[in-house]
């Protein structure tokens, strides 16, 4: 009798020219937590999306419960007990928690929805797995952590025995993670099988029974957790020894380049509204803002860069008040910005490398005289940047549309760093980027700092904050919980602050100016 409830063999998947999965292998035992790890673009998400029926496969076989499955659709996958919680939640904002959970599987009285029955069923899950949610609130009214619980309950409600979780801890604090792992263990004890897609090696080592590593679309190996460690996993993921700790030089600070005084701005969610944030950044230092995604960091950066209205307070850039100025004016004042969403803000995917690289300088000589553009100058400029920042492919006229995450980010970084502003804001610079590119981006940030610029770094990756920052500011629910010097900071006290608490052995530092 086959011990595997899922077997994927020799999976092939192409997206146009790009081979996303090449002879992919994966199997899952009943009642285990099996992590699927790899860098971005390794193919792990794609493999699972194929299993769940979102993408059709181009080759290979899939067996679930011993029987072969073909032409999988999400509906078919759900019918076979497979549920998936995606990185971007599949929740409809305008509908309620209840409506989202029952969607597609509504309890009905003929054609009408039986709302009472739905409420009763959901309460059962809340009680059994101790997951706290509010059925009558709309999705745009609840927190991210709660939304994730809604997603999990949704898969359970649909009868999932196999749960696929795609980077679930990306939005959780270290303490919320612990709680989340408890829920996973409850599920495991109940006989459910879990696929845990991640690139966070510490967590994977904590929670998994077995670990499968993928690299560049190919299967590398499946190991038992007990037979490996984080260093071993990293080596398998990248294929070489990885040095993630770039040497941090002590900051030689100069004058204040950024001064934020008592800033108030709107927020997409109640908890991300900024109410009275003050901080400063000096030339020659990196100030890192730590915090779980969704606690107002995006809104803060948008307010500083002129993309969101400042409702109260002031933003001062190198002595000049730029509050509510246009993005153009703010850039002219010396601000450069690597945005957190490179697809939405950072790049124009429909345009070429050279048009993207010249975007912030397009009105200036020598790239344009009046309204007439100088194509040759733009071309030469792009070629030199491509060389300097190792952008591939190296044709300035190539469209950026199908660039990988790392390559696309290089274009953004190249443009912003070349603009040589007084302040560089780097928002989630390593998100969705492969390890090789991460190394080079961190190196570049340290170079910029050494050149006497000020850097405001925002990252949900605590390791990144700790390795790069000279000072660390922790944000939680739109406010500053504390400011900690790099030499005093570690995962525990920063993690506590990120959750809104005050770490043991630390006096109250919350809310004050840095």
């Amino acid at each position, binding site marked *: 009798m086959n011990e595997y409830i899922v077997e994927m063999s020799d999976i092939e998947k192409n997206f146009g020219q790009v081979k996303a999965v090449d002879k992919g292998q994966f199997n899952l035992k009943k009642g285990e937590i099996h992590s699927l790890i790899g860098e971005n673009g390794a193919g792990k998400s794609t493999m699972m999306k194929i299993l769940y029926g979102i993408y059709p496969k181009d080759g290979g076989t899939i067996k679930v419960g011993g029987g072969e499955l073909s032409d999988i659709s999400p509906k078919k996958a759900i019918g076979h007990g497979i549920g998936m919680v995606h990185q971007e939640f599949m929740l409809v904002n305008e509908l309620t928690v209840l409506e989202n959970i029952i969607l597609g599987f509504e309890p009905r009285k003929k054609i009408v929805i039986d709302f009472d029955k739905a409420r009763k069923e959901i309460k059962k899950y809340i009680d059994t797995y101790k997951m706290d949610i509010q059925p009558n609130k709309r999705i745009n009214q609840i927190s991210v952590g709660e939304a994730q619980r809604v997603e999990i309950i949704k898969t359970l409600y649909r009868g999932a025995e196999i749960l696929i979780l795609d980077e679930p801890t990306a939005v959780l604090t270290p303490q919320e993670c612990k709680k989340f792992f408890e829920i996973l263990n409850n599920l495991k004890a109940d006989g459910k099988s879990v696929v845990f897609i991640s690139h966070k090696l510490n967590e994977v080592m904590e929670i998994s029974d077995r670990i499968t590593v993928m690299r560049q679309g190919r299967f590398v190996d499946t190991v038992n957790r007990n037979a490996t460690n984080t260093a071993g996993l990293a080596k398998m993921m990248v294929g070489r020894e990885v040095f993630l700790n770039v040497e941090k030089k002590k900051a030689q600070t100069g004058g204040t380049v950024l001064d934020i005084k008592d800033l108030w701005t709107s927020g997409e969610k109640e908890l991300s509204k900024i109410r009275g944030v003050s901080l400063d950044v000096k030339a020659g230092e990196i100030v890192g803002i730590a915090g779980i995604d969704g606690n107002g960091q995006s809104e803060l950066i948008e307010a500083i860069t002129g993309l969101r209205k400042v409702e109260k307070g002031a933003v001062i850039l190198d002595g000049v008040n730029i509050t509510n100025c246009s993005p153009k004016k703010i850039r002219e004042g010396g601000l450069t910005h690597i945005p957190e969403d490179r*697809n*939405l803000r950072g790049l124009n995917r429909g345009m070429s490398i050279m048009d993207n690289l010249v975007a*912030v300088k397009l009105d200036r000589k020598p790239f344009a005289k009046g309204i007439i553009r100088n194509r040759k100058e733009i071309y030469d400029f792009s070629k030199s940047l491509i060389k300097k920042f190792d952008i591939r492919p190296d044709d300035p006229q190539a469209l950026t549309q199908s660039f990988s995450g790392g390559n696309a980010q290089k274009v953004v970084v190249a443009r912003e760093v070349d603009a040589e502003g007084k302040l560089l804001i780097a928002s989630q610079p390593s998100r969705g980027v492969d390890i090789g590119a991460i190394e080079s981006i961190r190196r570049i940030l340290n170079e910029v700092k050494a050149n006497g610029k000020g850097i405001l770094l925002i990252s949900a990756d605590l390791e990144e904050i700790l390795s790069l920052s000279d000072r660390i500011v922790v944000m939680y629910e739109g406010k500053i919980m504390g400011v900690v010097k790099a030499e005093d900071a570690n995962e525990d006290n920063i993690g506590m602050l990120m959750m809104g608490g005050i770490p043991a052995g630390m006096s109250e530092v919350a809310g004050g100016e840095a």
Partner: protein
Amino acid sequence: MKVTNKYVNLLFTIVISMLIGAVIMLILGFNPLEAYFQLFKGAFVGKLNLGTTLQKFVPLLLTAMAFAISSRVGVFNVGVEGELYLGAMAAAWVGFTFVGLPAPIHIVLCFAFAMLVGAVWASIPGALKAQWGVNEVCVTILMNYVATFITSYLVNGPFSAKTGVPQTPAVAAGVKLTQFMKPSQAHTGLFVAVAAVIFIYWLMSSSTIGYKFTSVGLNPFHAQYTGIDPKRTMIGAMLLSGAVGGMAGCIEVLGVYGYFLDNFSSGIAFDGMLAALIVKSDIKTVPFMAFFLAVLKSGALGMERYTGVPKAIVDTIIAIFIIFATMEALLAFNKKRKAKKDVQASSGKQSEQGGLKNGI
């Protein structure tokens, strides 16, 4: 490879539509070969025919370009018909009011005022879309009706020439554009239009303005982040689009009629818009498609005269052609649309983004 695909697809669509037209003609008892022959003869052979084709080409070209310009920034200016009418009325008014001005100044004044009126008219839906995300397709269509009513009131009321026909007084002789291919109505406005189109092409492809339009049209969020103001750019594009629409109206009055005639346009701007839609507002191909439509429209007259096949058949064929073209064109011209879709999909956010996107 992709580029040739685009043109091949277009040709394919034309052939299919003409085949369907042929089938319809057969069913009705006409000879399609003779009909198509007369169609093309009616468009090219003889001064009257060729001239009519050229004359019809001018407003089609300009209105198609007007639509293509606004499409660049992602705004569908379906209100070109309204700008056409208002521009025409503006030109007519300047033409018959300021008699006595030296001709060159007078003509420039006519054009300038017509373009100004068209631009201002188009800026209204542009501003509404930029600021509050009001659906411009709906608003511009409704504004067309308002524009037609305004000009109808004017031509039947205060500006009437009181001749029993709903027309304004004739414009000053010096302002009329020379008709060079009698007995047709082809006029020198053709050269003005071609010059304008060449300028617009240069503007879109080689100027910073063209870059800004393209950037905002493909990804307004990125454009905003780089320092381009998407709202201003959208309104700017609508101003330009409206100006071109107004110019089209002005040329019709000064070149074809010599006065403003109530309801003189039987949907010229819509035909122009469709010419642009078929080629997905690609500035390079728009003029050719506009010319092709002019050929069809002009030839239809000859076809009806010689074979009895009703003009409405040609309109039907054009409509079928457009239905197919909106489908086929998309298969080949995937690049820009895919870029847009990637932006929307990967942003992870859902519909609302305030004034920059369509609000429901």
